[in-house]
């Protein structure tokens, strides 16, 4: 039995992960914006076998409330074995180009707030000499592309930050897992035309996440073939890449 904090607990991928963890009887501390939705997933995880489920309403953009949230989780569960950060938004790239304030809001949600929570968790786990930080980044963070480079650069920042954190915490026995999903058929991508072999379901991605965390993997592409796709995309020389409309 383990005790995990889940940030963005009502997101589709987090929900699928929590369902799998529930069947193992984990204790879960769920953090999200919407109290009704949190209550609804809490009931679901309880029926599926979770031991005790706690909920905590928080707008992740309010960085000054992160520490209090962490303390509450600790008070509720006693020991914290891991934190799974799954929240995120998919910004409207065009709007971000026209309005930097909007871009900044999106960067704060997708990057800054993640870094803030990671910092709190890293310091605690470093002292404790154990713990696991698992964060959903994205393949979009591997290379900047004209169609979504604001989202991409936020995720790129998360990936690089985690890389550094992994390096820093390795000798203290703290695990850091960077999860890079490709296209996932979830409410976040509701506006996309879906279908075809590149699209995965939240359940498929969640199964990969749970396995990667069990195996203490560092960086994981989900589904696996995105590793190959991103190797190709990253290897295209910039003088060619800048001419492409990806």
């Amino acid at each position, binding site marked *: 039995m383990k005790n995990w904090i889940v940030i963005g607990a009502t997101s589709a991928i987090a929900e699928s992960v929590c369902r799998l963890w529930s*069947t193992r009887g984990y204790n879960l501390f769920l953090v999200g914006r919407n109290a009704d939705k949190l209550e*609804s997933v809490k*009931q*679901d995880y309880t*029926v*599926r*076998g979770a031991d005790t489920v706690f909920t905590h309403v928080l707008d992740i953009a309010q960085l000054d409330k992160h520490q209090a949230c962490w303390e509450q989780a600790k008070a509720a569960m006693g020991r914290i074995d891991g934190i799974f950060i799954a929240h995120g938004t998919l910004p409207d790239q065009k709007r971000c180009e026209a309005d930097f304030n909007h871009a900044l809001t999106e960067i704060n949600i997708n990057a800054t707030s993640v870094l803030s929570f990671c910092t709190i968790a890293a310091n605690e786990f470093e002292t404790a000499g154990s713990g696991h930080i698992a964060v959903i980044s994205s393949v979009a963070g591997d290379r900047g592309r004209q169609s979504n480079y604001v989202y991409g650069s936020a995720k790129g920042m998360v990936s690089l930050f985690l890389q550094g954190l992994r390096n820093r915490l390795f000798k203290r026995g703290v695990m850091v897992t960077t999860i890079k999903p490709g296209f996932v058929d979830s409410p976040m991508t509701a506006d996309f035309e879906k279908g075809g072999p590149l699209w995965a379901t939240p359940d498929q991605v969640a199964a990969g996440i749970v396995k990667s965390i069990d195996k203490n993997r560092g960086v994981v592409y989900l589904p696996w073939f995105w590793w190959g796709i991103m190797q190709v995309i990253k290897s295209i020389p910039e003088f060619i890449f800048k001419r492409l409309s990806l």
Partner: protein
Amino acid sequence: MPGVFLPQGNARSYGDSCMLHEGTVLSTRFMNRFIAFDGETGIIRCEAGVTLAEILSVVEPQGWFLAVTPGTKFATVGGAIANDVHGKNHHVEGTFGAHLTQFELLRTDGSVRLCSPTENAEWFAATIGGLGLTGLITWAEFKLKRVSNSAVNVENIKYQNLADFFALSQESEQDFEYTVAWVDCLASGDQLGRGHFSRANHARVTQPKPAPSQHTLTIPVDPPVSLVNSISLKAFNWLYYHRQREKRVTQTTHYDPFFYPLDHVQNWNRMYGPKGFLQYQCIVPMEHSEAAICELLRRIGRANYGSFLAVLKVFGDVPSPGLNSFPRPGTTLALDFPYKGAQTMQLFDQLDEVVVQAGGALYPAKDAHMKPQHFKRFYPNADQLESFRDPGINSSFWQRVMEPST
């Protein structure tokens, strides 16, 4: 909300009752949360998009089982209510709807009704077997069944003809919770209706549970033509009938292969090729059962148009709570036919004559051809369901069978 909608679960119905060609389908795919489960009383409450497979995965380890389950566990709770589905234990437990305690119905005007046998009882009855037309079922609560063991002790009996089938059915009704038969629909003459009769009960507490099969088969692509044709059908039916040498074989199996044999082969429907298949499932009242089933099998034989899976089962007299439920006392026959256009429709017309004459009915969940005039004979309460239908909801099936017949 403008436009026309149709709630849809996992779209496992074989016909157009879960489809709407001009309008918007409301998928309940993401409405799949559990709400409450009481391990003492076996009452479970969940959102309508939860599949029966998910329910089993939660409740089976705690000694509970679905009181009624159809032949696929990929159906959703909402779909099971909307079609008031039945299973191999109809003669004991009745339909899925018979175990419902309550559900919530959301209409397109935004109104919400809690429906149970005592509250909004008329909406409760109209929605069970109501084909999703009365509104969107958001969540439902129903009773599970306590079982000594989820595994089943199955007795498989090879029988010679239709008379044997009815004798076996009657003999097994008392002592066996689950009964069903597979029919070799290519046999004729004095062997007409021969097949294998399966009867089963849940295993005893002390019996070890067989492990579920680890690997599933998949048909990865559509073959260019149907793999089910007169040659493969003859071979299959012959082999399947003769697969056991002994008259009687008893074994204990995991619940999956017994209740959900086709779920083991993912995308099994692809074996019918790009044109697919149609199912014909009818029920005929008990007093005409033997003659009517005989005639149906004869007509199928004459058309030289065999079926791969022909299933025969006697329903009991537990009343269905739905206003328009398919299950009723009698004998049900279900057959899958590779679709061959007009030839298939002609055969179905010939089968319809028998069903109508016997005072039987066809099953909307499996239907793609029922005539409006027949539908109203099969379902005398259809006009009542129409009055409960949400004006913002319709289905291709409903539009087809409710069009004024001239």
